[in-house]
C-alpha cells in the first residue's frame, strides 16, 4: 500500500500513505496529539481516548491512533470540547488510583504527569477512589506498583508482541480491572518472564520500575520498543 492521500490536519495539507493512522501522520508532521496507550511499534488499541480528534463530516469524535487517514479528510486536533474531554480523562486517571507524584520514582519522567501539566490539570473535581492496591516486589530486578498503573496495556502488548512471552494480561473488568502476570502468579514466580525489562521501559508511569531508584530517579528508555520493531521490519 503505497497509495498517497492528502489530508488536512489543523488546516495544513499533508501528504500521507494510505493505511497510516491519523496519529502516525500527525506525529510524522510535528502535529501534537496527546496519547497514553499508544506506543510506536505496538498495535494500537484505542483505550485511553486521549487522542480523540474531530474529523469533518463525521458526527462522532474518532480515536486518532486507530483511524486510518482518508483522502480529503480534515482533522482538528484541538477544540474547546476536545481539551475539556482530555482534561476530564486525565482527572479520571488521577482519581482512579493513588498517583502521589511526591513519592513516585517516575516523578519528572512520567507521561501521565506531563500530560496533566500540558492540559492544565491543577486539581481533580471528581471523588478520589483511594483503592488499597498491592505492590508486587517479588521480581529480583523490577517492581510493579498497582497504585500507579493506568491500564494502558503497553506492557501487555510489549511482552506479547515484542518479547513473545505474554507474561502480562488484564484480569477483572470495569473498575476492578488489574494487571496480572502469568495466571495471577507473583511476577517473581512467573516462569515465562525472561526478565528482559522491556515492559518496564514501555510503562508510561511509575507503575513498573527498576529496583534501586529513589523518588524522581527512574528514567525510562521509551524508544526501546520502536527501535526493536523497526530493526525487525528492516531485517
Amino acid at each position, binding site marked *: 500500500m503505497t497509495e498517497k492521500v492528502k489530508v488536512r490536519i489543523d488546516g495544513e495539507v499533508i501528504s500521507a500513505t494510505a493505511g497510516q493512522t491519523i496519529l502516525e501522520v500527525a506525529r510524522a508532521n510535528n502535529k501534537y496529539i496527546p496519547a497514553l496507550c499508544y506506543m510506536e511499534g505496538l498495535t*494500537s*488499541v*484505542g*483505550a*485511553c*481516548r*486521549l487522542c*480523540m480528534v474531530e474529523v469533518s463530516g463525521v458526527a*462522532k*469524535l474518532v*480515536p486518532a491512533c*486507530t*483511524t*486510518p487517514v482518508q483522502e480529503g479528510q480534515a482533522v482538528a486536533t484541538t477544540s474547546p*470540547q476536545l481539551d*475539556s*474531554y482530555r482534561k*476530564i*480523562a486525565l482527572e*479520571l*486517571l488521577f*482519581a*482512579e488510583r493513588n498517583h502521589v507524584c511526591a513519592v513516585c520514582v517516575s516523578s519528572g519522567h512520567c507521561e501521565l504527569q506531563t500530560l496533566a501539566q500540558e492540559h492544565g490539570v491543577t486539581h481533580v*473535581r*471528581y*471523588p478520589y*477512589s483511594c483503592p488499597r492496591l498491592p505492590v508486587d516486589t517479588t521480581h529480583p530486578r523490577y517492581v510493579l506498583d498497582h497504585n500507579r498503573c*493506568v*491500564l494502558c496495556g503497553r506492557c501487555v502488548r510489549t511482552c506479547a508482541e515484542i518479547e513473545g512471552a505474554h507474561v502480562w494480561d*488484564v484480569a*477483572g*473488568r*470495569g*473498575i*476492578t*480491572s488489574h494487571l496480572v502476570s502469568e495466571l495471577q502468579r507473583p511476577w517473581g514466580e512467573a516462569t515465562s518472564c525472561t526478565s528482559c525489562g522491556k515492559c518496564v521501559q514501555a510503562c508510561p508511569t511509575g507503575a513498573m520500575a527498576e529496583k534501586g531508584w529513589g523518588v524522581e530517579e527512574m528514567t525510562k528508555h521509551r524508544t526501546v520498543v520502536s527501535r526493536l520493531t523497526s530493526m525487525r521490519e528492516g531485517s
Partner: protein
Amino acid sequence: MRIADIAAFAAVREAGLAKLLPSRPRIAVGMGTCGSGNGAEAVYHAFKSAIDRHGLDVQLAPVGCFGFCAEEPLVNVWAPGRPLLMLRRVQPHHTDAILDAIGHGGLPPAETILGKIEAWDHLTGHIKYGSGYPDVPLWSDVPFFHGQVKIVLRNCGLVNPDDIEEYIAVGGYQALYKVLIDQNPAAVIEQVKAAKLRGRGGAGFLTGNKWEFLAKAPGPDKYLVCNADEGDPGAYMNRNEIESDPHSLLEGMLIAGFVTGARRGIVYVRAEYPLAVMRLEQAIDQAREYGVLGDNVLGRGFAFDIDLVEGAGAFVCGEETALIESLEGKSGRPRTRPPFPAQRGLFGRPTNINNVETWYNVAPIVSKGPAWFTETGSPKSAGTKVFSLVGKVQNTGLVEMPLGTPLSTFIYDIGGGGTSGRDIKAVQTGGPSGGCIPADMFDTPVDYETLAQLGSIMGSGGMVVMDADNCMVDVARYFIEFTHAESCGKCVPCRVGLDKALRMLNRFTQGVATQDDIPLLDELCRMVRDTSLCGLGQSAPNPVLTSLRHFRHEFEDHIVAKRCRAGVCQDLALSPCENSCPLHMNIPRFLQLYNEGRLEDAFLSVVMDNPLPASTGRVCQHPCDNRCRRAGIDEPVNMRDVHRLIADEILLSDRFDAVVERVRERRLEPTGREVAIVGAGPTGLACAYYLALFGHSVVVYDSRPAAGGMLRYALPEYRLPKAALDREIELIERMGVRFQFNVDVGNDISLNDLAHQHDAVFLAIGTWKEGWVYLPGTELTGVIPALPFLEAVARNDEVPVGSKVVVIGGGNAAIDSARTARRLGAEVTVVYRRERRDMPAIPEEIEAAEHEGVRVAYLAAPHRIVGDKSGQVRALEAVRTKPGEFDASGRRKPVPTDEVIRIECDTVILAVGEKVDPDFCRASGLTLNEDGTMVVDRYSLETSRERFYAGGDLITGASNVSNAMGYGKKAARNIDKRLMGQKRFAQLLPEFVYSMEPPESPAEVGRHTPPEAPAAQRVQSYQEVSLGLTPVAALEETSRCLRCDIRSSER
C-alpha cells in the same frame, strides 16, 4: 426423515398439519420460561394425568408463549371445527372442567377465557381453526392484543417449538426452499434492502446493506452470527422468540447464508437462558436430521451448518466486537472499528452479526415481498418491533407493534394504564443504554430517530413504565451501577467515568450532593458518551443525561430540599409514611410513644409536627396509608385515626392547659421580628404557629369573623366538629399569635402597608372562588355554587335548598354538598362524567354518602339545566358517556353517547372546582401563573416580591388540608431562616426517648377502622359520622407498626 425433494417436504408438512389440526381436540400449554415460572409445568402434568386417567382422546402439546405475561399460565384449546380458545391464568384445578368443556363442545370456566382465534396468518402459511363461541371476544379485540401486528411472533405460542414438523406445517422453510430453487442471491439481498429492514438489536443499521458487504467480501470463509446475548434488565423478547419458535431463527440464517456465501452460522446465546439453549439445540438437531441443515440443504446442494455457543454472561458481549472476541476464546472486550466485522471479524474473516429478532423478519420478507413489509411501520422504520412492556402497568408482556406507534398506545391502551390507578410518570426505553421519557411526551412515536432525539434509544425493546413511586435519580443511579459493573474496563471514560458518575449519583441519593454537582455530572456523562470505545460506554450515560434533561427538578429536590418525593432514597426519609406526609410528621414516634402509654408525650410529638392534629386526624387524605409497608402483610396502619385519638384525648380534656404549657416551653427567645400572615386557613395557621414558636411577633389577617378557613366554612360539622377546631386554634393563639378578623387585605389594608409594618408577609388566601361551568341554564334560580352553600350551612344561615338536589362534580366539595343537602332533607343525586375510580373525592366519603342515600350517576356529563317559565330549575339533563381513550391524566376520557338522562330537581349545586380569587392576585402586583395561582420559588416559597412569601392553595390551586399546612410549615422555616440568617427548626423540637427496637414479628392484628354512626340516624343531624378509635383499639393499632424508622446500626 431427510427431506431431499419437494414431495418429501410436502409429506412432512402434512404430518405437521395433522398434529396442529388433528381429528381430535388439542390442548397446548404455554411453556416458555415465563409460563413455567407461573406454574405451567404443573398445569401440563395435570392435563396429562387427567387425559391418561380418563383415557381421553385429546392431544397435548407444549408451546411457547403468546406474550401476555400478566395472565400466565396461558393455555390454548381447540376442538375440530371450532375456534382456538386462548385461556389465561389456568391452574391445575381447572383441567377437568376444561377437558369436560371441549369434550362436549362447551366453554371452559369463564374466568379462564381470554379470547378466541378463528384463523391465524402465519405469514408463511395460513391456519383456519373454525368458527363458533359467539360470546367469546376475538383475540384482537382483547385490549392487550388490540393493534398488535405479529410478524416476528407469528408462530409464538401456537406451534410446538420442539417439533420441526409443526413449523413446516405453518409454512416454515418454504421461503428457504424458494430461495434455493430461485438461485438468485442478489435478488434476495435487494428484497431485504427494499424492505428497509433495520437491525433490531438497537442500532438500526440496514440489514440488507450489511448482507451486501458480506456477500461482496472475497473468499469462502465467512461467518454469520446471531447475537442472542440479550442482557438488558427488563428485556426478554429474544429469549421468548427462541423458546417459542427456534426454527424461524434457523431459517433466517440459512437464507442469509445462501445469499451471502457464508457456510457457517453461530448463535451466541447467553447461558442464563437454559430453556432457549435447550430448545435451540433440539431445533438444530432436528434440522440436521431432516436435511434442513448440513451438506445438502433440502437436497439443493447448498452446505450450511449452525453452531450454538453459550455466552458466559458478560453484558458487554452483546457488543459485536466483544462478542467476536468472546467467540475466539478471549475475554470479551470490544475492539476498535475499523476494521469492521464485515472486513475482518471472527478469526479475521468477514463476519455479519444480526440480532435474534432481525433474523425472524427474513422469512416473511422473502415469502411476502418487501412491499408488504413496508406497509407496516413508519417510512424510515419499516415493520414491527417486539417490546417487553414491564413495570408499573396493569398488563405486562411482550407486545409486537408497528414501528412509529405512539408511546401512549403502549402504556394506556395495551398496558391498561398504571397499577391501582396511579399516575404514570415516565417510561424507560432501551434498558441501561436508553433513557427516561416523561409522561407529557407520550405522544412520541416509537422509532429509531424520534427516540434518539429525546436522548433515549429503542435498543432491544425494553420498556419499563414508572410511576410516582419511582425516583428518577435512583433509576439513573441504578442503571449506572449496572453499566459500571458491566464495563469491560478497557477504555478510560467507561471504566473510570462510570465509576465516578456512580459515586456522584450516590451522593445525590444520600442527600450530600451540591448544586455544583449537577453541571459536573452532566459534563462527565457527555464526555463518557462522546469518547468511549464501544456502544456500552457511549450509551451508558443516557439514563443520566435524559433524567437530567427531563427530570432535573428531582435532582434539585435531592440537593436543595434534601427530599426524595418517591420515598426511594432511604437516606432522605425517616420512613415511607413520614416521607409521604406533607407535614413530614414523625409518625412512628407518636405511635411508639402512645404504645408506651405516654399520651402527653405522644401529643407533644404530634403537635410539634402538626398544629391541627384533631382536624387533620379527621379530614386528611392520608397519603401515609398508600405508602405504609404494613400493607404488604395485610392493611396499612391506621395512622390518621390514632393521631386523631391522641389529639382528642388532650384537646378535649382537662389536660389541655398543662400540655399547652409544655408546648409554650419550646418557644425560642423573642426576636423582635414581625410577620404578617394573610389568611387564617390551615396554611396561615400552620405558618403562624411555627413563626410564633420561633419567637417572632405574628399577626394573622382574615376577612371572615373566625379562624380556620375552609376547615370552618367549607367542611361540614359531621366530618369536623368545630369544637375540636376551636381548641386547636386556641392552642395556636396561646403561642402568641394575634388575629385580626373581618379585615379584607387589599381593601381595608394594602399590601404595601403590610410590607412597611412587617419584616415579612406570608400570603395564604386559598381558593375561595367557585369554578363555573358554562352550561345552558346556570342562570336559573336554584343553581348555586358549592362553597357558598357549604359556608351558609356552616354559619347557620338561611339556605335555599329544595327537596330534590343534583350536585355536579366528583371532588370532596361535591360529596360534602351532597351529604349536607341530604341532612337538610333533600333527595340528592351526584352527577359525574367519569367512572367512580376516577373521582378525586376520598373513597370512604363516597361510600358514606351512598350509605346515607345519596345517589351517584356515574358516566353522565351534564348537558343542560331545564327551567320553567318562572326561571326556576326543574330538571338536569345529562348525556350518558362511556370510557374512551386515555388522556394526559392517565384516566379514560368520557366519550358522549346518544343517550340522554333527565333528573328532575329543583336545586343544582355546582361543585366543579375552586379557584384562586383573581381580583386579589391581580391587585397584588405579584407574578402569577396562567391559571391564576401565584409564582413562588419552588424551595423558598418567596414570591416575585422580596420578603413576600406565599403558600397553600394560592400557589397550587385547590388541594387539601395537609398539603396546605405543609406549605405553611415550610414557609415558616424559610421566613425564619431569612430573618435570622440560620436554620433553627431543629431547635424547636424536644428530644424524645423511646424504644428503638423493631418488633420481632409483626403483631397479628388486623387494621382497626373506627365505627360510624348508623346512616339512618346520622342523616337526621350534623353529629359526627366517624366515632373514632377507642383507646384500646388505638393501642393495638400502634403495635401494628413495623418501625421502618429504625435502621440497622451497621449501616
